[in-house]
């Protein structure tokens, strides 16, 4: 387990120019998330606010059916890629576990976290270089994005089970969620509300990676393509 993320703390890293961080499955997972979440948000909003009605006979159209199909397919894709991602956390490198294991009992991690907070508050210029996620980013992913994604998958499959019917696998695995929330309409409301948590994460995430890319001398965005974090000095 990676206790702290700064590369500077290890003297061997003095002349480090690049380091392989994100293995192929992690990168693939990331971009599957990107596409799936984009499709899920757009189709999800269309399900809540359907487009203007089609004309003619009902038998000639399947518009809302296709919107829902896209939503369900993207949801399934998201869930399966999460399962593979969890598997990879067991067999992948240290960085693949950062999403799930946050070293909250490690003093250095907290020091770096506070250091990060201060640098984001413009109290000082950040001088530490990180190989994987910086502590703030790690906290945001582990405590905001990952729980939100799982909340969406659990409530999503619970609602899917309503259409799939009693006795379907989704009913057997996730059917208990509906009485837990009270009734189906509550599950819909919370599923919709949690979508905005993911939207907030996407806004901050996109801003942060682009900002890091521009203001620091380390690669961020391209790292999720190539897998390598490069340091320009």
């Amino acid at each position, binding site marked *: 387990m990676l206790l702290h993320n700064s590369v500077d703390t290890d003297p061997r890293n003095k002349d480090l120019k690049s380091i392989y961080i994100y293995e192929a499955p992690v990168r693939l997972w990331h971009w599957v998330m990107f596409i799936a979440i984009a499709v899920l948000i757009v189709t999800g909003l269309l399900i809540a606010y359907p487009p203007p*009605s089609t004309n003619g006979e009902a038998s000639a*159209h*399947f518009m809302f*059916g296709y919107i829902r199909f896209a939503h369900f397919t993207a949801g399934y894709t998201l869930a399966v890629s999460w399962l593979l991602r969890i598997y990879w956390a067991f067999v992948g490198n240290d960085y693949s576990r950062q999403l799930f294991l946050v070293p909250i009992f490690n003093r250095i991690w907290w020091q770096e976290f506070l250091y990060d907070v201060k640098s984001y508050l413009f109290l000082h210029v950040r001088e530490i270089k990180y190989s994987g996620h910086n502590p703030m980013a790690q906290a945001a992913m582990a405590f905001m994005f990952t729980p939100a994604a799982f909340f969406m998958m659990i409530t999503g499959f619970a609602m899917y089970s309503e259409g799939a019917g009693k006795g379907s696998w989704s009913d057997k695995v996730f059917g208990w969620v509906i009485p837990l929330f*009270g009734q189906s309409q509550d599950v819909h409301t919370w599923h*919709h509300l949690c979508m*905005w948590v993911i939207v907030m994460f996407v806004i901050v995430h996109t801003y942060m990676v682009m*900002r890091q890319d521009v203001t*620091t001398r380390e690669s961020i965005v391209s790292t999720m393509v190539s897998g390598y974090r490069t340091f320009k000095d």
Partner: protein
Amino acid sequence: METFYDVLRRQGITRRSFLKFCSLTATSLGLGSYFAPRIAHALETKPRTPVIWLHGLECTCCSESFIRSAHPLAKDVVLSMLSLDYDDTLMASAGLQAQACLDETIAKYKGNYILAVEGNPPLNEDGMYCITGGKPFVEELKRVAKDAKAVIAWGACASWGCVQAAKPNPTHAVPIDKVIFDKPIIKVPGCPPIAEVMTAVVTYMLTFDRLPELDRQGRPKMFYGQRIHDKCYRRPHFDAGQFVESWDDEGARKGYCLYKMGCKGPTTYNACSTTRWNDGVSFPIGSGHGCIGCSEDGFWDKGSFYDRVTGIKQFGIEANADKIGGTLAAVTAAGVAVHAGITALTRAKLNHGKGFGKDGSGE
């Protein structure tokens, strides 16, 4: 001992009508034609099971629905079957006589009668908000439930709490499963439940001497296993994306889907779209109005009947998921914009002071 069939024949019901009822009941229970003779046989041979029907905090809409059971026989059959050893609304006797009937039935059929509860008990002020026979209803309910074989919760009141338990629930009305713990409870929610569902549930229990298969929330699966939406005759319009956009528009005249008008069919488990009401004449969606979800838990407190994305009370009357989430997202975006602005300014200042050094972070 008198059987159901004896009672029916005594009331002048023909054997033909009796068998028709048995077939209808078998079909509506999803049992198939094979079970019609079994139901008939059971009704012919089994001694009548007494039913005690208690009324708590309620509007009596369950009884109103029940006595309008669509099948021409059902009301006779079921009223006879139940015989209503005690039902203070329907029975002829009143006052002390009625109480005597109740006590007599409990004593005579101890552990062998079915208790049907319409309405629910309020718990505030020691239950004084609902008094029957001079005692708080909650005490009466517990006393009668103690020796019952099984308990039927009629309607949304007994099953979930309904309007008297809606926020702020001043009388602290609770569904009956909050005061009866040691008896099997079968929930037949709805405000009111469909008459045919009620008669079929009773028939099933009397015929097979057991509860029908229940779902996670204690409702009989055969009637509450699917949503209104799953069997709605307007469903093709839903899949096609053809919606009523406003009352009395072209779509409303053409009978398009009422999803956009806040129809709760997609979140409501009941048999309305198959069984319908009043001898199969219609049901709310058939009459051009969305389902209000009356058989769902706490349906009074789930925001407007006419909203698709319903309100969230905890955040204020007008708030829904989008107003809350959208506001948070907008604040986040604004924060990001401000942060980006300050970042740019800080870097400009550093670069200005030191010139364009090789280190972009301004070292």
